[in-house]
């Protein structure tokens, strides 16, 4: 009995086996990576008085294109724009996986603001739709999930934190599979808020660059299947951590303490040294403080020479969706052994050196790190290991 109790707790392996995304660059992963390789960006100048009193740069999905794609899978008119984006991201991976939506299949939805645009309309029904549990139920019921939706709303780390939550739930054997969706929309609500913070860039955002002046906002959804089964696995989730800065609610810690500790813990759990990391998909919002904080945290960890990018130059800051969208793209990067350029980068503009990827480049990627940070002082780091499939 004693020896049993003292046995080392062997953690169950957890994989990502399916991915998808809906973005201004494309409605599947393939079209997104092709656009990235061409150097296309979803960020464009918009003049829309219903969103902002002045012109603004943002990465926005064409609504007509979205509706046309949605009509192919459903004629139901009741879904909001964001719900359509989420359903479109999930639909092919649920179908492909063939997984039964039973009591061992979790549904995790992550978002920062969900259907906040519903608040513009002054009706009880519309107000009800602004609730995140209602959003989750609408999407969940479309597919017929049997388990209660789990909503993660932790500012801009939501999407990557949801992967971490899925991994933990599967490791504890509560579920065998978890479909994770992350999504956020460009709205008047969020645009006005970032603008009030003077955090918006007057040109397409330039992460880590000397002349960066702030974020470009964006919208997207991304979906993954996190599974205990290795069949068709793309990557293994080998370490994760989400540590708060305990410093400020609307600005990052100057020492990058929370991010530093999150990465340190995630590497420790993964049982790998920093020199094993081949690539970092970072947060890089292009605000002066965020990018500086990341450079400091990475230097404290000895990760300053590892190739790093921010995908915000392609997609803008898609808030809660960003962590999962960038994970989906990084998985492609690893599987194709290709480092994608950090779009918008020119001259280094952080005080400590980091190795920003300035052009697409072939490179063997076995281990990579995804990080994100957000309001409320939150940070998340997840370490992934590429799963190599033997050729038969």
């Amino acid at each position: 009995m004693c020896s049993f109790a003292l046995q080392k707790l062997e953690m169950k392996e957890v994989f990502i086996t399916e991915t998808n995304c809906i973005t201004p660059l494309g409605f599947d992963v393939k079209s997104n990576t092709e656009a990235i390789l061409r150097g296309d960006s979803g960020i464009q100048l918009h003049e829309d008085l219903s969103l902002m009193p002045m012109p603004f740069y943002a990465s926005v999905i064409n609504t007509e294109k979205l509706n046309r794609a949605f009509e192919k899978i459903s004629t139901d008119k009741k879904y909001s724009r964001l719900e359509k984006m989420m359903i479109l991201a999930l639909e092919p991976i649920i179908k492909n996986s063939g997984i039964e939506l039973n009591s061992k299949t979790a549904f995790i939805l992550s978002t920062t603001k969900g259907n906040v645009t519903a608040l513009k309309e002054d009706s009880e029904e519309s107000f009800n739709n602004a609730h995140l549990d209602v959003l989750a139920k609408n999407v969940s019921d479309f597919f017929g999930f049997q388990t209660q939706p789990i909503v993660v709303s932790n500012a801009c780390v939501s999407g990557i934190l949801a992967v971490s939550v899925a991994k933990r739930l599967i490791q504890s054997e509560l579920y065998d599979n978890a479909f994770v969706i992350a999504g956020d929309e460009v709205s008047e609500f969020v645009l006005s808020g970032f603008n009030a913070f003077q955090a918006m860039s007057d040109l397409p955002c330039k992460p880590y660059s000397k002349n960066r002046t702030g974020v470009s906002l964006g919208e997207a959804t991304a979906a993954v299947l996190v599974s205990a089964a290795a069949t068709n696995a793309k990557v293994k989730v080998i370490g994760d951590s989400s540590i708060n800065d305990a410093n400020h609610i609307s600005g990052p810690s100057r020492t990058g303490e929370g991010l530093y500790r999150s990465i340190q813990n995630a590497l420790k759990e993964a049982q790998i040294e920093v020199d094993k990391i081949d690539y970092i998909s970072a947060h890089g919002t292009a605000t002066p403080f965020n990018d500086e904080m990341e450079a400091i945290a990475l230097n404290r960890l000895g990760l300053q020479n590892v190739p790093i990018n921010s995908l915000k130059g392609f997609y803008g800051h898609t808030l809660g969706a960003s962590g999962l969208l960038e994970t989906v793209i990084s998985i492609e990067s690893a599987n194709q052994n290709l480092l994608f350029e950090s779009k918008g980068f020119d001259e280094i503009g952080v005080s400590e050196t980091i190795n920003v990827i300035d052009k697409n480049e072939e490179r063997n990627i076995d281990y990579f790190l995804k990080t994100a940070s957000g309001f409320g002082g939150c940070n998340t780091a997840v370490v992934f290991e590429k799963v190599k499939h033997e050729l038969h």
Partner: protein
Amino acid sequence: MTQKTNIQSYITIQNNEIVLNGTSVFKIEPTDFADFSKQAYRNFDVQYPKFFKMDALSKLAFLGAELLLSPITSGEQENNIALVLANKSSSLDTDVKYQESISDQENYFPSPAVFVYTLPNICLGEISIRHQLKSENSFFIFDAFNTEFMSNYSNILLNSNKADVVLCGWVEFFNDDYKAFLCTISKEESTKYTNETINTLYNQ
């Protein structure tokens, strides 16, 4: 494989009353939450002026955390206390106020100080700053307090050694309607609550 965890302390805040470990510690005549929270703050002599800048959801979570964590945290050592909170209305109470500030083109005054509270996890940040918790934190949304999930998730953090203690609970606030239920959970033996679960204590 996994070790048993135990509830160490719990607190409920609702209907102008604060009940700590089953004992009423503060109760006043019916009033609004702004007044109730201010009186509670004074009653417990909190001394943290930042409290008055917080939105209602953060004040509610902060007060509950204050009474549970102050006795067990110290500035001298690291406290690996994870925060796992949930509610139904997210930050909608503040979202609605913020939306009002941008709805009228003539009266367009988006305030950064209000905008920052349009995220439910800001209350986790406030608690982390107050008690210097550089620890795991996550905010979940459910249509009702999912005690099973919250208890499972807390146990995962404890059993995987990601946290020594978890402050877990429900903090719901909308339009002056509020209820907070928070508890501390750890692997330590509990003399007070051996069979109680989040579910039985929440529904008391």
